[in-house]
């Protein structure tokens, strides 16, 4: 049996309770390709049951709900299944399992979480803000994983005096800081009127980037490893 969910944490936990007793079951979001003759069900989130499952999981492992949050942010197609198999092991063993790295399910979950965390860390550096005429900052991004609100939290602590919008252009949503509130909002596309000096600062930055390089020590492969080409789209030094 395959349980389809809406992508929320509540939906996942509701489906988990249904899928847990059956060893061959799976949880997936809507993009899953069904095999011939496979049974499926669509699960709607049940707040009450999800709460109950969450409470129980927290008793077994205080960190696992934060890990579930990370796993569900992943851009991987089978992230729900990875999370399901990981949490099922916790439920079976009745204790934390994250250190059992020789287990394939634990390993898969741990690598999936590491990828999400790694990208969030990377983007803290690679996000590039444009200054608008009003002084507010705007940064377009298109990350592999759904991490736009995590970046919002990072930049709220760093730039509390500057209203900003971090726009995930592929997921069409944005993390917005208006100086008082940080919130997620759907955002199709944005028109930004740049400030008078923005071009000049970008050009200065390009000059800096050119000057700080040591041409006689070319190491493009290393550069690509640290800064993959897909992240360069919104960075002024590559324009």
């Amino acid at each position, binding site marked *: 049996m395959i349980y389809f969910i809406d992508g929320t944490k509540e939906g996942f936990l509701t489906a988990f309770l249904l899928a847990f007793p059956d060893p061959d079951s799976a949880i997936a979001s809507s993009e899953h390709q069904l095999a011939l003759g496979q049974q499926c069900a669509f699960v709607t989130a049940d707040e009450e049951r999800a709460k109950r499952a969450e409470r129980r999981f927290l008793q077994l492992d205080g960190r696992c709900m934060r890990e579930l949050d990370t796993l569900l942010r992943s851009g991987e197609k089978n992230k729900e299944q990875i999370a399901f198999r990981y949490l099922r092991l916790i439920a079976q063993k009745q204790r934390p399992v994250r*250190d059992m790295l020789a287990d394939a399910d634990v390993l898969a979950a741990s690598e999936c979480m590491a990828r999400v965390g790694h990208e969030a860390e990377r983007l803290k550096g690679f996000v590039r*803000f444009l200054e608008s005429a009003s002084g507010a900052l705007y940064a377009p991004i298109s990350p592999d994983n759904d991490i736009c609100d995590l970046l919002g939290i990072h930049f709220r602590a*760093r730039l509390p005096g500057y209203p900003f919008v971090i726009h995930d252009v592929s997921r069409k949503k944005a993390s917005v800081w208006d100086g008082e509130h940080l919130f997620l909002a759907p955002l199709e596309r944005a028109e930004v009127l740049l400030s008078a000096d923005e071009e000049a600062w970008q050009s200065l930055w390009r000059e800096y980037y050119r000057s700080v390089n*040591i041409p006689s020590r070319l190491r493009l*492969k*290393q*550069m690509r490893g*640290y800064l993959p080409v897909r992240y360069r789209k919104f960075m002024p030094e590559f324009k």
Partner: protein
Amino acid sequence: MFDIARFSCYNRGMISEEKLKILTEGAKYDVSCSSSGSRRKNEGGIGNGSAAGCCHSFTPDGRCVSLLKILMSNDCVYHCRYCPNRADADVPRATATPEELCLLTVDFYKRNYIEGLFLSSAVVKNPDYTMERLLITVKKLRTEYAFHGYIHLKGIPRADETLVREAARYVDRMSYNIELPSERSLKLLAPQKSKESLLLPMRRLAKEKELFRAEKRNGLFLPAGQTTQMIVGASPEPDGLILRLSQNLYRKLGLKRVYYSSYVPVVRDSLLPDLPVEQLREHRLYQADWLLRFYGFSAEELLPEGENLPLEYDPKCAWALKNLHCFPVEVNTAPLEMLLRVPGIGAKSAYKITQARRYTPLTLEDLRKMRVVLRRAAYFITCGGKYSGTKSRTGLRGLLSTGIQPAKQLSLFDNPNALLPLSEAEPAYSALTGEL
């Protein structure tokens, strides 16, 4: 609430591209670019520290851009022989004002181009004047511009103690470059500097920091500590001596990092070698440095004082080959300290192994799945008593060698640049190795 409008009035003082270029090229050979170690909080204004550090971009030479690495001035009165900015060199000179530097930092920072400022300078007029200008800049940045991001300030040797101490109250990290690994070389190549003029301020700052902590005073005093840098290969000191020096700096002065930069000839001088030092030597020194700091090795274990690190093996591998009686170790029972000594097993892998083996005996296949690198490690471990390396001890050396020949005869065709006058090989001012 923090007021943005207040800052727009500064926009007149943007630094010129030409000046930025000169001052950046003068600073770029400094190796240190790390922004870690500080948790400075945002107290209204702009910026905060990020304890793990953060890389904002990468240049085609594979290095990260974390801090805005820049000289306040390249107009030097010193005559260090290896330095293209020395007083008698014919290079374009520039000096930035504190306002220009502050504005540049804040505007780059808020666009998230950088993690902070790494400010250094040539010695303008005299050490006290230079240190004072540096102090004015960092003080202005912290107070007037309310900047709480990372600041790394290079200390000026022989500058007044009170200026240095005050600067340390505003910045996250300070560093004095040791430049050359021995007093003799320093005297020869950088006559205005002495070992004492570099070590004394480091010692004073370390003491002051201890005092600051003991008295639990308010504020911060160099939260990210001190670092230093030395040039390798401009003078004849062997790796054994260099590593002992680093070890002393870590143990006695509590330095956070020692950086090594391989010598690149930019100035032709009868006292300096004409050929650049191979990058591999620098790489091996860094590997050994890591072993000192994170793997529980001592410099004495790694190599005798008068020797260089072997180029064909990494230092841990070389140590293991000299101490084959300690191997193979059983991954399922060996203590963490011993796992850390297995060539190819890093701190992360060693930790993963100690965690995972509590639940099940590990096989070689398990290790592979856990992404433990086994290319070298396989020869030094057993998994459940099974050894899958080679039985022949002499064969082992060959299998582990990277195939790099340690000694090389200089050929006319090897490096055509060595035969050219330097000015044709590369513009002198664009390749500074040891700056202040």
